[in-house]
């Protein structure tokens, strides 16, 4: 199990700890359940509670296929990521693999993109949370005057609140996260099971008959590009790879497992939703379309339950993304790609307050745009670039085959699978809205500019550090 890793920041890896040269140990404390909960908890907020209305509006019932395409691409990336993570079970995830496999320039672009990609994702979840808050008020009979403005106010307030809590809170929230995820999966299972039985006519009710692809085939792909944000969570498992127990086993299981689990839930949700209400009604209901589906089946109690679940899910996803983003920032500041002060930890709370502020600030700023689709797509864009490069990094490292590279998990169907993973990740970007593409490219060019200005002399590839 012991292997020499390529950077000075690493040490001897055992199932329960990492031991550094001076003898100092870092305990591994996240088990398989915790890992799955990070993955599922980050993802489930988007695919079920925000996207069904938007997706059905674009591609009709075939948007289930869009989610399936997303799941397959995510899986093609999750497998190579698992291999790299078991060989380098270190904080930083995708950034770490790419910087070690392909050098500091790629690392800097990916690292900065990962930080900001998660900032976009967090903002997206917070807008989603705002939509659910408004939905809850409307349900409670409070006229939510100003709708959109109120969504933004709530999103900003919660964004500030979550950031402040992360800076000062020392209670362990992991067990809470596990409970939330279990609760959500339980509620969704009941809901989907009933919906599926109904869709197949068990309850004798007429489903809404409609064409599978009312908008043609192209929207299936553009919708896949839009909803890919629903699959960003598995890479977050890799960002805490340094804290996962028995990484050789638990990392692949948590990453692949969470993708498969949420993928199945997403596809079934879209299927049930489009059968219950039809695409047009879903589109009209927008971000909270799933609430209307629940109302159709279970009346008001169902709508209330799903509103509650939506609040929980978007909050959990936003929180997980903010924390992951701060981890990403730590990883690049450890390697001096950004000033080391960015990951400073304060002794009183033990939290990385600078990094959290550098995440929370931009998140709140982005929430004020209120642009769900653009936020989601830019987040996906920046992640997809990283995913593609993870696959390329795997190909590069395997070709070089350095001494320290000794993964516990091997990607099946090598090199075909990582090659498809890379091509499909980059390919999906082409189907996004032009504005998202422009913003994404802008962020990456900015990252490259920063690298040339600040971190040109940093060398990370292999054992060079």
């Amino acid at each position, binding site marked *: 199990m012991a292997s020499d890793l390529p950077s000075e920041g690493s040490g001897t890896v055992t199932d329960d700890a990492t031991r550094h040269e001076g003898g*100092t140990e870092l*305990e591994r404390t996240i088990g398989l359940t915790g890992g799955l909960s990070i993955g599922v908890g980050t993802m489930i907020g988007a695919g079920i509670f925000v996207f069904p209305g938007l997706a059905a509006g674009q591609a009709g019932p075939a948007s289930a296929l869009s989610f399936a395409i997303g799941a397959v691409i995510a899986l093609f990336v999750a497998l190579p990521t698992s291999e790299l993570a078991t060989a380098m079970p270190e904080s930083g995830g995708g950034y770490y693999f790419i910087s070690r496999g392909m050098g500091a320039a790629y690392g800097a672009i990916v690292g900065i993109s990962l930080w900001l990609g998660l900032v976009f994702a967090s903002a997206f979840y917070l807008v989603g949370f705002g939509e659910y808050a408004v939905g809850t008020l409307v349900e409670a009979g409070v006229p939510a005057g100003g709708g959109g403005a109120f969504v933004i106010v709530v999103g900003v307030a919660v964004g500030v609140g979550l950031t402040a809590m992360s800076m000062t*809170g020392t209670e362990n929230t992991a067990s809470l996260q596990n409970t939330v995820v279990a609760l959500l999966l339980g509620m969704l299972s009941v809901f989907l099971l009933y919906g599926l039985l109904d869709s197949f006519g068990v309850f004798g009710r007429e489903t809404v008959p409609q064409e599978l692809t009312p908008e043609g085939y192209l929207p299936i792909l553009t919708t896949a590009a839009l909803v890919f944000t629903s699959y960003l969570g598995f890479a977050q498992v890799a960002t805490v790879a340094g804290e996962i127990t028995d990484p050789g086993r638990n990392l692949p299981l948590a990453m692949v497992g969470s993708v498969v689990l949420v993928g199945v839930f997403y596809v079934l949700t879209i299927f049930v939703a489009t059968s219950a209400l039809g695409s047009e009604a879903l589109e009209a209901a927008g971000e909270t379309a799933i609430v209307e589906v629940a109302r159709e089946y279970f009346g008001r109690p169902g709508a209330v339950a799903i509103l509650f679940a939506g609040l929980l899910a978007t909050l959990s996803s936003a929180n997980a993304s903010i924390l992951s983003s701060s981890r990403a920032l730590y990883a690049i500041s450890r390697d001096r790609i950004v000033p080391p002060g960015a990951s400073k*930890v304060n*002794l009183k*709370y*033990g939290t990385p307050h600078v990094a959290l502020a550098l995440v929370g600030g931009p998140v709140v700023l982005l929430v004020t745009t209120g642009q769900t689709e653009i936020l989601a797509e830019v987040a996906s864009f920046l992640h997809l670039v990283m995913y593609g490069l993870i696959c390329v990094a795997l190909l590069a490292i395997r070709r070089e085959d350095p001494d320290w590279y000794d993964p516990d998990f091997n990607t099946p169907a090598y090199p075909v699978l990582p090659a498809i993973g890379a091509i499909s990740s980059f390919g999906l970007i082409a189907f996004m809205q032009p504005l998202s593409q422009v913003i994404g490219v802008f962020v990456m060019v900015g990252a490259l500019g920063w690298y040339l200005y600040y971190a040109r002399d940093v060398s990370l590839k292999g054992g060079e550090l």
Partner: protein
Amino acid sequence: MTDVPENRVLVPIEVLRGQDVPEPVIETFSSASVVLLGYHEIPEQTAPDQARMQFEDQAQNALTDFETAFAEAGGDVSSRLVFTHDPLKTIERVAAELECDSVLLLNPAPVLRQILVAISETVNVEHIARLVGDVMADSDVEVTLYHVTPDSEERERGERILETAAETLEEHGIDRDRIVKAVVADDEPLEALLASAENHHLVVLGESKPTIRERIWGDVSETIAGQTVNPVLVVRRDYLEVPEAELEEAAGGPRG
């Protein structure tokens, strides 16, 4: 498992929170093999490596000071430094890895003259007694062997268990006049133990087997360590197991 040649005590120290090892504890435990486990608990928001980079030197220095103090008192001492989200997991892992048979949970102890050894009927009495004997033989501490029974009719069995413990203590260098035996009948064993602990300077007890209730509400030994003002020496579960037959014999025949 019961024939471990030497006793090794794990002493967890929350090294960056100013936790101190009392002087009397250092003196008393210099007769045992001691592993100092310096740890720093970090919240989930922080990567362990992030905290390590910033605090490693400071933590290592503090730990080295304690190590030197034990070494100067003539102790056989070594140390480990761990950054962790979960100190309990770390303590259990390191204790198992280094084959420590007991864990000393620190609390202030201005003096260390009277210790309370809680003995229940389901644990390996001899291991506890041998450990106490070996550690305390060179000191002049007075040992109170303590057994709580919910039912006063079982008092006799309690006496028998404590006598076994006393004999073992004697074999390991504690004179009879330093041993006090106390069997107490009380419905609330935990409360009774906590009350008695107030008159002592150190509590020794066996780590209880986690019943379902304890899994939920926390282990008894942790509860006690949290509620007394004394240091608590917890003898680890692995070293307390006794074969069924022996258990019945010690308890004076099979129970209904």
